[in-house]
């Protein structure tokens, strides 16, 4: 009986292979090959272009460890990732809750559309729109001064808050979507049962709803934290001089300095650090979830 089941599942895998093949081919061509090339580059002295002479080296990696600059940038980026993730939780979770548990029918669809709208707009357009809102004499500045009786100067452009605002706006839909899915799966009768037992709304949130939506929070956090740590577009455009982060430095290596080997090495260090963080966090998160 057991043997039958085992062969059954093995033949199941074999018959599934043709279905998996396109995905694997695509992954191999589109991700694995370039990535291997990058690993290769990261150990080279020069790009093997235009007949330049090159050799294998570990210098690109040692640069990171020998120069405090990169460490500091990496820490700043990790902090940025953490802050943006936290803001996304603060903004996204209540929004997801309202969408999943308060609104019904038409109004839910409408609000849902508004939430995922940033997904559908071009990233650059989004960022430059924020630039118009946040700069001195921009929309926010003008609007506030038109309403308020005293003169204030709002110039958030080229500042750390501007970077945060831009990134949170770009990434908050992930948090809303993942949390919405887990919140929606929570049966309303659980909430009613809790309240009939005397629990206040706040107690229900703390004891039942947040624990049950933890998987969504964790998934959202991972989806946001990782790309934000490596982000470069928002920091560069909205952050200006203050917007130098680990991601922008990597970008510089590729598009400005043309030091691909260093850029590649810095990328892999980031990847390793992020993986270590996720690995360290996973037991804690698993227990919470």
């Amino acid at each position, binding site marked *: 009986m057991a043997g039958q089941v085992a062969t059954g599942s093995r033949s199941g895998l074999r018959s599934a292979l043709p279905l998996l093949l396109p995905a694997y081919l695509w992954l191999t061509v589109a991700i694995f090959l370039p990535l291997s090339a990058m690993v290769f580059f990261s150990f080279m002295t020069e790009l093997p272009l235009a007949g330049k002479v090159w050799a294998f080296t570990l210098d690109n990696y040692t640069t990171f460890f020998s120069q405090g600059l990169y460490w500091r940038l990496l820490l700043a980026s990790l902090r940025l990732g953490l802050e943006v993730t936290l803001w996304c939780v603060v903004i996204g979770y209540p929004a997801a809750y309202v969408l999943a548990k308060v609104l019904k029918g038409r109004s839910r669809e409408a609000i849902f559309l508004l939430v995922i709208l940033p997904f559908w707009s071009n990233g650059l357009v989004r960022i430059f729109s924020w630039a118009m809102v946040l700069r001195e004499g921009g929309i926010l500045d003008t609007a506030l001064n038109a309403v308020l009786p005293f003169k204030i100067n709002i110039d958030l452009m080229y500042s750390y808050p501007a970077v945060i605002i831009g990134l949170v706006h770009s990434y908050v839909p992930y948090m809303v979507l993942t949390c919405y899915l887990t919140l929606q799966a929570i*049966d309303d*009768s*659980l909430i*009613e*049962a*809790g*309240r*009939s*037992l*005397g*629990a*206040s709304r706040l*107690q229900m949130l703390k*004891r*039942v709803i947040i*624990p*049950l939506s933890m998987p969504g929070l964790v998934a959202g956090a991972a989806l946001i934290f990782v790309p934000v740590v490596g982000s470069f577009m928002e920091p560069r455009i909205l952050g200006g001089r203050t917007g130098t982060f680990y991601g922008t430095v990597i970008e510089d290596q590729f598009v400005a300095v043309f030091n691909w080997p260093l850029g590649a090495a810095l990328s892999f260090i980031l990847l390793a650090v992020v993986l270590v963080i996720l690995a360290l966090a996973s037991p804690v998160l698993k227990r919470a979830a």
Partner: protein
Amino acid sequence: MAGVQVSSLSRSFGAHKALDDVSIDFADGGFYALLGPSGSGKTTLLRQIAGFDFPDSGRIAIGGESVERVPVEKRRIGMVFQNYALFPNMSVADNVAFGLSVRGEAKATIASEVQRALDLVQLGKLGSRRPHQLSGGQRQRVALARAIVTKPRVLLLDEPLGALDKALRVDMQIELKRIQREIGITTIFVTHDQEEALTMSDRIGILRDGRLVQEGSPEEIYDSPKSEFAATFLGDANIFRGETTGTGIRLPDGTAIAAGAGATLAAGAKASCAVRPERIRIAADSGMSDPNANILRGQVSKRIFAGNNSTYFVERDRQTLKVIVQNTGADRLAEGQDVVLRWSPESTVLIATS
């Protein structure tokens, strides 16, 4: 513990009246079944009493205290849901402890109360399990333990046994009844299983289209239904329709049927008579006849043998009558045979046709 009084309660969803002027007095410590077809407003009524939903008009009092504007968490009710609604992120013991712990009871008190409640539902050893590791019947017991551990004033159950199979259902019915007696809690039980309502409850309320059709003890409703609907919804009934003679009815073909129970009506109005299938005697000939008995002749069209009893379907004047006969080993009647049906006027209930 407390009784519940519901008076002139109405609740509409849009143009649809889910509850229409319902008044019921749920006695302190009683076991009350709300029975009715799907969509009749049973759940809606229960939710008004629980406080999940609020009535458009009418009054609800628990233990004499008016609660219409009191939110759920302040009403001190226990609720058991059809789908159990156990918290999946907590162990069985934590589920049961929930109501006590949100009230900030001391840890030691909680532990002993939880153990007591789990023992009461015979799950004393399963406290550390998760809900998904339990069977359906066990989950329902946990839900019950969780609802009663806080010593609520009223226990509300919305088709709590609906998801269980027949055998388990009967076990749980007995179990639930035992626990209810033991703690003496006022219990309101929604079901659409008439047998469950008959066997478990002290009183039954029958709802239809948001209105209370009839209310009373199981015997009262079964023996003297006040409407054709009540007669056919709770148990089986043969219904005869005709013109009333004051003490019975006259069928369109002129046959008179005498009724010894039910309404007293002015002669000439349209009315019906209800007779339970097990009250009718069936025989091949009229034999020795009680002069007062109602007598009808017909022909057996079908017989269903069910071990301890048989059901005969008898055709007469374009009507099919149902007769249930205990299996005494006496002569059985064949399909197609001409028969005489006899029953006493006391077994006949006169019902006004609305």
